[in-house]
């Protein structure tokens, strides 16, 4: 604990990262309390105040139907974090199982499992997601499904590589000589040694999932109106550039804040979780 605090404080960037991520979480959790116009999260028309630049009343301006941009960003964080959470609850366990089994058992099992994962990896992520979304209805749930499908093979690769390295360590040999089961060796001996890398990657991925989700909705395939979503906001705003710049710039910055914050925190976590 003391060590974690030391690493954290000795690196100013990590403090910035924590502040950014903290802000994002705070917005998402307390959206109803801090958003200036909570009803603007949904389908509200407010044409009298449409296209207003940033002002004391609307800190980040309003959109084409007169909704407060700040409010919509705060609610969009809620959606984004929810998606990230769901994707990162499903994708890593699948990838971990693939990677551990392929890496430890080896042979044909390794060949088959890793080729399956390679097939997913060989398709550009956005193309894969687009293909899945093309087959399914463009809904929030399906967007999460598509992102999960493109995400798990990265965990399979990560865990596979670590497992291949750990497999030759003495403690694995010792467990084999004792007669421990393969399941024990994979999940109780090797997996704990993968956890720091997995947790670090999950933190980094939180940002990237938000980015991909935004890309999907930017292309009109993710979250549908009137739900507030950063990608859709950027996408809609581009039609009014450069005059109504705030409609694009602020949601864009909001994406940057989240992605950058999670990246910084991921880097710190890597340092903290590395054993001495």
């Amino acid at each position: 604990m003391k060590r974690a605090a030391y690493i954290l404080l000795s690196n100013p960037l990590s403090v910035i990262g924590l502040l950014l991520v903290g802000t994002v979480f705070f917005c998402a959790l307390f959206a109803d309390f801090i958003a200036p116009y909570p009803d603007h999260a949904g389908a509200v028309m407010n044409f009298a105040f449409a296209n207003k630049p940033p002002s004391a009343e609307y800190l980040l301006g309003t959109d084409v139907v007169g909704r407060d941009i700040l409010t919509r960003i705060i609610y969009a964080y809620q959606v984004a974090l929810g998606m990230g959470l769901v994707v990162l609850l499903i994708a890593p366990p699948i990838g971990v199982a693939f990677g551990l089994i392929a890496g430890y058992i080896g042979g044909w099992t390794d060949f088959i499992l890793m080729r399956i994962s390679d097939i997913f990896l060989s398709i550009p992520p956005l193309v894969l997601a687009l293909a899945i979304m093309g087959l399914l209805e463009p809904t929030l749930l399906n967007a999460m499904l598509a992102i999960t499908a493109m995400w798990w093979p990265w965990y399979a690769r990560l865990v596979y590589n670590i497992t291949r390295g750990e497999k030759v360590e003495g403690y694995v040999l010792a467990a084999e000589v004792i007669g421990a089961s393969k399941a024990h060796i994979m999940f109780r001996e090797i997996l704990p040694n993968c956890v720091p890398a997995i947790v670090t990657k999950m933190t980094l991925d939180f940002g990237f999932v938000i980015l991909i989700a935004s890309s999907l909705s930017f292309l009109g395939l993710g979250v549908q109106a009137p739900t507030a979503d950063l990608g859709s906001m950027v996408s809609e705003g581009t039609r009014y550039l450069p005059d109504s710049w705030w409609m694009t710039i602020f949601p864009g910055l909001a994406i940057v804040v989240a992605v950058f914050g999670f990246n910084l925190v991921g880097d710190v976590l890597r340092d903290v979780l590395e054993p001495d």
Partner: protein
Amino acid sequence: MPDPLTLDIKDLRLSFKNWSGTTEVLHGIDLRIAPGERVALVGESGSGKSVTSRIVLGTMQDVRTARVTGQVAFEGQDLSALTSSDRRALRGRDISMIFQDPTSALNPVFRIGELFQEVLKRRDPKVTKGEARAQAAKILHEVSIEDTDRVLDSYSFQLSGGMNQRVMIAMALINEPRLLLADEPGTALDVTVQAQTLAMMRDLVVQQGTSVLFISHNLGVVREFADRIYVIYQGRIVEHGATKELFDAPRHPYTRALLSAIPRLTGGGVPDIAERSPDFDDPFVDHAEVR
């Protein structure tokens, strides 16, 4: 004026800053090597012997969390007065190093001949491929490598550990450095090969008049190589003397324990020696002053 000492270390201290504060690992080391002398620094793991060699090599000073104080003078020139790039210029030209595992110390991407040329460039940047090859072949003969063409055209992973060790010795000595740092040389090799390559290294440094700082945990190996020995225990030098004096009449309790803990080839059972003892912290014993 007498020759300055090749290496003159005075009150060398090293500490690391980490999350729990500052830890001092060297508590004031004094060590001198005259030109042409072979001096050993002997200690167990964690005693501070390897960090000492890294300070002399000038790489420890670049570690962000490390704080080095005291004097390390090479031929009268204080290393701390030099910039990081000047220290780098010294390495490989005037000070060179031999490592524990020769195979991992040689870059596997280049042929041995190319590695030699790189090393020679540190002394003469204009050295041609032909000259480099001729010089390399000459010194490889000195370490009893006859088929020099094959070796120079090979990559390190194509050669045996013993062969790589000889290549490494030749490479470390080709620029006729004034100081050679040997950190546990050949520990990764088989005993018979280790004995052979150490004898070659000794012959070559004697012939070139190179000073050597020999870092080792193995008293048997040190006995066959060094003129003088410093024994280091937990960051302090505890005993210093000529090799024969130190082996015939060790005076510090730690040195005595170390010597008697080694199982003898002549038998007698496993010695019953305590792993730690308060008298290991007894003051420094210098045979040179006792005489």
